[in-house]
């Protein structure tokens, strides 16, 4: 930083605050008592049902899959519907474990894993993603009560892959779904924030990008993705069919 930028008024503002509060030095407060809320008890099936319901309520699409092949089939169908041949995959280990690049290649799709992106410039990566029809990511957590996906920068580039392409597809393991915001805030805090090297960015995603700025009319896809697909992966599903739930208010 150049010296000219260092004209900070820290001392002055803090002095003004102390004077306003009627004290001459900072006092360490007793922290507030914790806020205890009754825990929500739900079964895994209930969580999946609620999560699905909330995603469709915010004009997202929810899909169920029992195997990596079914995940790939869903992705291929979404790409076909949008006439997309090339898609971006985040470098999430979950996607690699599902062997998605090979599965998608078998579906005649060209999947670029951005962690292996061979161009060296960030600008080029951004330009590539901005022109990409579909971006596929994993998630770190999910919240059933609001249909929310939580992505963090611990998985490098997943935030850009979920933001720049026109369609975002997220693959969620059923066991990643928590019932409430409070639970996920606590997990984020303890697992990602309060550690030696905190994660740099976390993002909650609830449905596709939207605005009501013109006449309060809902319009989807203003700056971020125009569509959001959530593929829920779980082995314990009773029904053998591949299920998809379309938005309730598209």
């Amino acid at each position: 930083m150049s010296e000219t930028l260092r004209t900070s008024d820290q001392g002055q503002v803090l002095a003004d605050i102390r004077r306003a509060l009627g004290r001459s030095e900072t006092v360490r407060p007793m922290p507030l008592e914790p806020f205890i809320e009754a825990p929500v008890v739900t079964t895994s099936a209930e969580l999946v049902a609620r999560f699905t319901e909330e995603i469709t309520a915010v004009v997202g699409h929810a899909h169920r899959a029992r195997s990596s092949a079914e995940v790939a089939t869903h992705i291929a169908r979404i790409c076909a519907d949008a006439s997309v041949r090339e898609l971006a995959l985040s470098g999430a280990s979950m996607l690699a474990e599902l062997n998605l690049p090979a599965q998608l290649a078998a579906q005649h799709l060209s999947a670029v894993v951005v962690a292996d992106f061979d161009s060296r410039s960030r600008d080029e990566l951004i330009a590539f993603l901005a022109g990409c029809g579909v971006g596929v990511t994993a998630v770190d957590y999910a919240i059933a009560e609001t249909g929310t996906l939580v992505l963090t920068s611990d998985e490098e580039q997943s935030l850009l892959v979920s933001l720049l392409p026109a369609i975002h597809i997220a693959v969620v393991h059923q066991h990643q779904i928590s019932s409430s915001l409070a639970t996920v805030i606590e997990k984020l805090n303890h697992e990602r924030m309060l550690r030696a090297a905190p994660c740099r960015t976390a993002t909650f995603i609830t449905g596709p990008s939207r605005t009501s700025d013109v006449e309060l009319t809902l319009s989807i896809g203003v700056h971020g993705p125009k569509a959001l697909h959530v593929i829920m992966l779980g082995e314990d599903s009773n029904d053998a069919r591949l299920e998809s739930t379309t938005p309730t208010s598209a």
Partner: protein
Amino acid sequence: MSLVSPDLTERSHTALADATLQTALKRATDTFIERRREAVAGVPDWEALRARARQIKEHTINHLDYYLEQLVEQVTALGGHVHWARTGEDVSRYIIELARARGVTSVVKSKSMATEEIELNHALEAAGIRPVETDLGEYIIQLAHEKPSHIIVPAIHKTREQIADLFAEKLKVGRAREVEEITAIARARLRHEFLSAGMGITGANFAVAETGTIVLVENEGNIRLSTQVPPIHVAVVGIEKVIPRFADLSVFLRLLPRSGTGQKQTAYVSFLNGPRQQTEIAHDSNSPNEFEFHLVLMDNGRTRILADEQLRESLYCIRCGACLNVCPVYQKIGGQAYGWIYPGPIGAVISPQLQGLKQAGELPFASSLCGACRDACPVAINLPDMLLALRAKAKETEGAHAGRRKLGESMAMRVYAATAQRPKLFVAVGAMVRRISRLLAKGGKITSAHVSPLDEWTRYRDLPVPTGRSFRAWWQEHKGDE
């Protein structure tokens, strides 16, 4: 004379006479009230959440120095830069110097009341730096060179036709017919801006002292793009935005979206910890620190509010806009008529403080003291009491300059007092008033009285006629009923 300036009166008259604006305001406030009601009904412990939020804010504001120091320590430890600014000019100067030092010529901005408050865009433009508002509503307002009319939906006073015309004129595009087309035009234009800007400027909804996390709540994705794409992110944050702990977010992130737009959760919430980290992909570049994060902590009149114990709780505000929607005055005149960036009940309280009472001291009179704002507020700010206190303060300032109306008013009160103390006279005058008002009425209402001061009332509304019988007579008849 009236404490409301001719300017405010004139702006209100203009707003009331604008049929398009009246339609837009009614639609916006009705819709928001209904959506909020539904969203709140879905939370069984809403009142407990409100009480907790208020408790957290009260605790934080009472220890603002401690929590700000903790915040600064955390942000610095994460590799972020912190700048403290006493005034809006300090904020603008810092950002301009930073932009110049980094060779930045265009910046993308997300909707931020803090930067609106200090008119950062003017300062940037004067310094030859091009600010681009990226929230759709703000983008429209910027193209039209206007001020926002609502803190959540800034361009709510404009119809789709007006916006289509504006885009056609300013952006040289074909005239859009549908809202989807308007959105698509803005998306294409602004995508380019995000990818080429050297700096993103945002506000913040919350700043967590414990972790140094800046939290931003939005629907469009423009905040994600402003903070994730350009190499430099500057957050301009009022000093009252700090909250102690990350866990506190589970309270505020349930209250804010439901109170603001009636959503259970907005499309995006970003949690930012210092500058992004260099990734392997970016390693070719020669600069070792590609990403920067600057937190600008702004006072700009907030310590003045803090010093006033009666008004201190206005610093609890989380800028949701719920008090605007339920305010009967806002519903009729909209945000621009107030003449200041913060409209509605909360604006009437904080604008005189942030701008100095002399300049905006009339605003507390632009309210009905009905209390709907306090009931809607997610942190239960006692707005009516503060509006009353500010009215009293303005009266004191006004002092001996009592005008004619004041004299008339005090005469009338004296006559009333004399009558009310004489029961027989009171009954006789009451009967007379009832008779006269029935003579003047049409269909049970007096629509236009030509006698002062009654004409002041009937100019804008009908005066209902009293029933044929006084309460006194009714009571004489019914007191033995039980």
